[in-house]
């Protein structure tokens, strides 16, 4: 590598870290506005036009807040825990392909799984074990939360920390199983190859419908979002593991949680919704190349692919906020039951489906649709088992109560 390449990589790393952090700041605003709308409120709209300066105002407040370190806390670990939480959340982004802008000015190289002549600046690096890297890094995130709970020397923090470690490790298994069947359908661990294999509209959701559902449930639990946010159940645990944290350290925990949420949404798009692929993207690249030359063609292709990727991620983030507004929190034993007695066996079943169908039917299109059918049937059966019981007949609903007048 020459110096120019290294310089470009360093700039790329800092730009992407900055972009992810900014995305986090605006995700908090996005969530508050959407949640407010879903609850028939207005939400923060005073700081700047339509509340767009609200994240900046929050940041200023957090910077000037006094930082109280509890006298009983285990100081080194207490200070280290927020950093341990936020660094893994950031480095997941090293392998996610946001789009494809080829600096060798040949947009068609983006469709090449072997990466010949491809220098994509919209992905930091394409490790050949990318998926494994993601799983390894997300596991490290548990330490930040557990250490924070332990080091605060507070009963609420302690309970929150233990709860979170038990929850995270339980759902990591289901997550591992879901991602394993994704790896089996594509036969590779490289994220770039996974995206290139989804060209032509056969997105990962078709062979892995069941895998997608498992992934979404497990990933929501893994980033401790509602309805799995028992770690910070306010009514029982005050603030959970971050009860004793304030000012910038609290902000870092908050940041870790939201960056992880964006990361799992981006991974869901990469695995199941074609990454940066969008119908008509190759035609656009071809036409612009024919009109204005390969440089303009690659740049337009890169920008549009990035836009398509971000659009899909925003849809996932919206769904996550919607779920938070709609579902109540699970009870702890039900949470464990869901992870161990539903998601894990169904995940193993999905592995069996994937293996058997792919070996019996080598044709890619046919086995994808067979797997889609099997997944849909399994989901229907699982929902049938878990139907909500009907309300008892002798209960009077509030709207039926006859008021004496």
């Amino acid at each position, binding site marked *: 590598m020459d110096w120019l390449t290294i310089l470009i990589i360093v700039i790329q790393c800092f730009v992407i870290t900055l972009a992810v952090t900014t995305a986090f700041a605006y995700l908090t605003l996005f969530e508050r506005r959407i949640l407010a709308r879903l609850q028939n409120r207005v939400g923060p709209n005073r700081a700047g036009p339509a509340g767009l300066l609200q994240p900046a105002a929050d940041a200023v407040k957090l910077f000037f807040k*006094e930082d109280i*370190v509890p006298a009983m806390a285990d100081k080194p670990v207490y200070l280290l825990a927020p950093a341990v939480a936020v660094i893994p959340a950031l480095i997941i982004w090293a392998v996610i392909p946001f789009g494809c802008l080829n600096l060798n000015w040949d947009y068609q190289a983006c469709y090449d799984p072997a990466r010949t002549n491809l220098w994509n600046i919209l992905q930091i690096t394409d490790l050949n074990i990318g998926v494994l890297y993601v799983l390894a890094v997300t596991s490290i995130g548990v330490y930040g939360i557990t250490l924070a709970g332990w080091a605060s020397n507070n009963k609420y923090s302690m309970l929150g920390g233990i709860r979170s470690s038990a929850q995270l490790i339980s759902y990591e298994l289901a997550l591992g199983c879901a991602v394993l069947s994704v790896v089996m359908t594509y036969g590779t661990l490289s994220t770039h190859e996974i995206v290139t294999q989804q060209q032509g509209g056969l997105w990962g959701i078709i062979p892995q419908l069941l895998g997608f559902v498992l992934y979404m449930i497990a990933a929501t639990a893994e980033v401790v979002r509602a309805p799995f946010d028992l770690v910070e159940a306010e009514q029982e645990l005050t603030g959970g593991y971050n009860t004793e944290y304030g000012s910038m350290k609290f902000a870092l925990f908050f940041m870790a949680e939201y960056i992880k949420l964006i990361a799992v949404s981006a991974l869901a798009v990469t695995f199941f919704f074609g990454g940066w692929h969008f119908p008509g993207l190759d035609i656009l690249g071809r036409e612009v190349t024919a009109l204005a030359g390969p440089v303009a063609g690659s740049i337009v292709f890169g920008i549009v692919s990035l836009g398509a990727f971000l659009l899909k991620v925003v849809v996932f983030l919206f769904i996550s906020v919607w779920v938070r507004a709609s579902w109540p929190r699970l009870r702890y034993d039900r949470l464990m039951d869901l992870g161990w007695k539903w998601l*894990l066996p169904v995940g193993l079943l999905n592995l069996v489906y994937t293996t058997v169908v792919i070996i019996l039917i080598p044709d890619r299109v046919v086995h994808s649709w067979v797997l889609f059918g099997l997944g849909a049937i399994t989901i229907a059966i699982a929902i049938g088992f878990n139907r909500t019981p009907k309300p008892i007949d002798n209960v009077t609903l509030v709207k039926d109560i006859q008021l004496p007048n």
Partner: protein
Amino acid sequence: MLANYAIVGIFLVAAISFPLIPLVLAFFLRPKRPTPLKTSTYECGLEAIGDVHVQFKVQYYLYALAFVIFDIEVIFLYPWAVAFQVVGLYGLIAATIFLLMLFAGLLYEWRKGALEWV
């Protein structure tokens, strides 16, 4: 291939500097006036009673043990998952036996009541 890991290393430096910059900046900006009451442990406004590091439910340990076993088994399946269309029938049979062991282990724990939250 090693160059890719060097890039991850550069990114790691960027990722480490990002939480550190606001922490250091906030250290110089914020007031610091601790009092014994401020730095006492929070417990609903009362004085904290007893030790924090108490005994907790044994179920947490059981789940943790089960997790270690299953997580390692899932990780072992990854190399096979990448190559299962190449290694053919022999690999398939080996992986099936392995998966059955995984499943039998889960059933055993289930029946023994290790997965009950009581």
